Each structure stands twice: as structure tokens, then as C-alpha cells.
């Protein structure tokens, strides 16, 4: 009955290989509906904008994280302000994305459910200017879904975004940014 044994062996082997592969492949996470809120506050004016069109990838094996926000998708209550934001400050025709590329500090095991507070070190690229940043973020892992929340500030001067004297009192020197996204395990093709 060697053929029975061989069939079982083959079956087991294939199952093992597939399990191993799917296990590895499941360790890429992605999200293409990352929400971003930006908020500028001065004694004269509060300005808010929101986008739900950011995208991001986490590669668990290397702990690499990439998140990018198309600048034009940030929506302001006042469309004229949105036009000025794109035309005069972010120059989004030239620099269409705000991007962060970094590495998760060890300490978060994305294959295990739990809440993790970890730092992500990397490069924040806004308005064509790269800046080395360490951004604290909160990961909530549940049933293979990774919820990512991060809050940080971006100083306009760091990214060569100049605010003219006439509107200096209305736009904050440092803009608060909040990011939230639900990363799902990437399915294999």
C-alpha cells in the first residue's frame, strides 16, 4: 500500500507548503481608504481639512510602512481656501503626494491580537522636502485586521512651505495631522 502512503505524504507536503506560503503572504497589509485630518489653529482662525483617500502598505516581515496621501484629496469647507492650499502652499501639481516611509519599531506582533503603541521611524516627505521623523502610532490588531492611528505635527517651515506676512496670523506655523486607517491582510492573487 505504498501508493496510499505516498498520496498522504504528497497531500501533507502540499498542505504544508501552501500553509507556509499563505502564512507569509498574509503578512502584507494594505489600506486604500486612510483618513487624514489636518488642523491649523490660531487665535484668528481655525482651519480644517479632511481626506479619506490615503493609501498605505505594511510589510510585516520587514516591518516596512509606507503611507501616502494625495494632497488634492484634502477637502476644505471653503473651496477657495482649498484652491489656495493646493496652488500657493502645497503646490500639489508639482508635489502631488505627502508620503511617509518608515520602519515599525519591534514590539508589535501583527499576527497576534492586541493593542500596541510603537514608534515608526522614517522619512516624511511633504512639499518635496524630506524630513527624518519618529512618529508614535497606535496599532490595534484584531482578527488579522490592523487599525493604525497616528497623531503628529508638521511644521510648515520644515517643508519649505512659506506663509506670507499678510496671512501669517491666520495660518498656524505647525499643522496638526491625524491619520487613521484599517489595514487588511493582502490577499494573494
Amino acid at each position, binding site marked *: 500500500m505504498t501508493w496510499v502512503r505516498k498520496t498522504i*505524504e504528497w497531500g501533507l*507536503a502540499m498542505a*504544508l*507548503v501552501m500553509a*507556509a*506560503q499563505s502564512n*507569509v*503572504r498574509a*503578512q*502584507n497589509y*494594505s489600506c*486604500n481608504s486612510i483618513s487624514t485630518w489636518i488642523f491649523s489653529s490660531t*487665535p*484668528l*482662525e*481655525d*482651519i*480644517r481639512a*479632511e481626506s479619506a*483617500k*490615503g*493609501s*498605505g*502598505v505594511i*510589510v510585516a*516581515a*520587514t516591518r*516596512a510602512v*509606507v503611507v*501616502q496621501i*494625495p494632497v*488634492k*484629496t484634502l477637502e*476644505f*469647507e*471653503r*473651496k*477657495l*481656501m482649498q*484652491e*489656495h492650499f*493646493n*496652488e*500657493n502652499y502645497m*503646490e500639489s*501639481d*508639482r508635489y*502631488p*503626494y505627502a508620503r511617509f516611509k518608515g520602519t515599525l519599531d519591534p514590539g508589535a506582533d501583527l499576527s497576534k491580537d492586541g493593542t500596541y503603541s510603537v514608534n515608526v521611524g522614517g522619512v516624511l516627505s511633504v512639499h518635496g522636502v524630506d524630513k527624518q521623523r519618529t512618529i508614535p502610532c497606535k496599532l490595534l490588531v484584531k482578527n488579522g485586521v490592523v487599525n493604525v492611528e497616528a497623531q503628529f505635527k508638521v511644521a510648515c517651515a520644515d517643508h519649505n512651505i512659506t506663509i*506670507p506676512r*499678510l*496671512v501669517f496670523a*491666520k495660518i498656524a506655523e505647525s499643522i496638526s495631522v491625524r491619520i487613521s486607517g484599517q489595514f487588511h491582510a*493582502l490577499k494573494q492573487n
Partner: protein
Amino acid sequence: MNKSGLFFNVLGSLIALSWLAVPAVKAQDADSLLRSMDTLSKSEPVQAVFKATRIVLSHSTETQKKHDLDLRIRHHFGDIGGRFGSAHTLYGLDVASDLFIGLDYGVTDDFTVAVGRSKQDETFNFSGKYKLLKQQDTGMPVNLTLLAQMGWVAREPFNENEFTSYADRFSWFFQGLISRKLTSRLSLQVMPGYLIRQVSMEPGDPRNLFVLGFAGRMKLTKRLSFVADYTLVNGLSRQPDNLANAYYDPLGVGLEIETGGHIFSLNFMNSEYILENNFIPNTKKSWGKGGVRFGFTISRNFSLFKSKDPGKQSKIY
């Protein structure tokens, strides 16, 4: 080594390989994975083809944003040179050849209604402007905006023969404006138009005038632009040789300065008048004969109807 031993060796290697090789390949892919999920749509309309709804004299393809109200004050001074200019009038600054106060309101992002009043002939104007086509990065190559503008002359008649019918006080101007933002700095526009009048100033001058306008904007810095527009009147439906008076084609050039909600323009033009219904048929000054004048525009934008959702609000204290 028996068969099954070999088999398990191969199997072991396979598993090991799949564990090692796959993450390495995938890790390189983080950027390309992201690229494949790009959410930036190429079919979004191109923004800010022009900074304002006017260029120098003429309209641009821009309309007011939804619920934005634009207060626009315009001034044309007198001739810089020639008989009416020179130091006696401080190069035209003593003279106000036309003044204009107007309000433009965005009913939607694409539809603007406007009302204005000019000093010339005490002309009131009521206008509607509709953005029909919007330029996209891929797809639609141009913007198309339609303009309809009624002029109503409110002044007393100069003589008994004037305004014998009340309808003579009205004129209508229709224009199709076609523009394209060629680069982030340069935008060009061409605009055919048709002016319908009840009376013309002199025999031989057709009541209805076909015109063809050309305009452009060149951004010098983020907030400072060079703007120009030219309206071809003579030689189309009007033959200037048939007329007793000399009429010229309006040409305006200017610098436009934008500072978040305000726009200031410093202009030079040969037309005395501000409204299309007046400057198209009645420009009697020429750039070549000292008829050029200084003018300015002040525009202030107000946003009405704030959002009730506090998460979206932008507050002005």
C-alpha cells in the same frame, strides 16, 4: 537514501525557500504595492485656471465657488497722454472715466449670478455664468464657460430722441469662454461673443456686434501674475471705415496680486469703460494716441453659509 528520504529533503527545502524567498521579494514590493493602489484620480478637474472671474477687462472661465460672494470694485482713470492727459490731469488720475461696484455669488460651484453698477450711463448689469466643461489631466482638454449679461442704462435721456422706447435702454451680451491651463504658470483663453443692442451710436454701425476675445495669464510668482486680454471688434461685424468716429479694439494688461481671499489688480487699458456692454461698442481711445489709462480692481471674497458640522468647520474669530 531511500525515496521518501529524498522526498522529505526536497519538501524541507521547498518550505524553507518559501519562508525565506517570499518575504524578501514582497519586502521590495512595498513601494510598487502602494503604486498599484494609487487613489489620485487623473480625471479631477484642473484647479485655478485663472485666479479670478475677470482677467483685465473680460471675464475668465472661472466661476465663484459655491456660496462664495465676491465684492468687486473697479476703477478706470483718465487718459495718461494726449489732449486729456499729461500733468494737467496728473496723467489721468484726476479723471474717473468709469467706476464699477459689483457682487458675484456662487449658487453652485459651476453657476454664478452677478449684479453690478457702472458709472458709465448709470449702467446696471445682471449676469449669469455657467461652467459647462472642465479641463482634466486626462480627458477634457479645455474649460468652457457660458456668460449672459444684460445691461440696463438707467440715466436720464440726453435728448428727446433718446430712449424713445424703454427697451432701447437694454443690451445683451452673450459669450462662450474657452480656456486651457497649459502649465501651472500659463493659461490661455479665447472667447467669441455677441452683443445685441437696440440702438447704435451712428448710422453704419451695426446694432449687433460679433467679437472675438483673447486672454492669458502668466504667473510670475505664486501670488503675482501678469494678465492680458484683447477683444477684436473692428473688422468683424463692424467696419470702422464706415464710421464717423474712430473706434478701437479694447486691450488691457495688468498685474494681479492674490493674498488669500483678496485680489488686487493694477491695470492699463485703452478702454474707458468697464462693462462688456459698454467697452465693446464704445472704446474711442487708442494705445497709440495717449489714450491708455491706469485702472485697478479690488476684490474681496466672502464665504457664506458655514457648515453646521463642527468637524468640518473653519472658524474665523
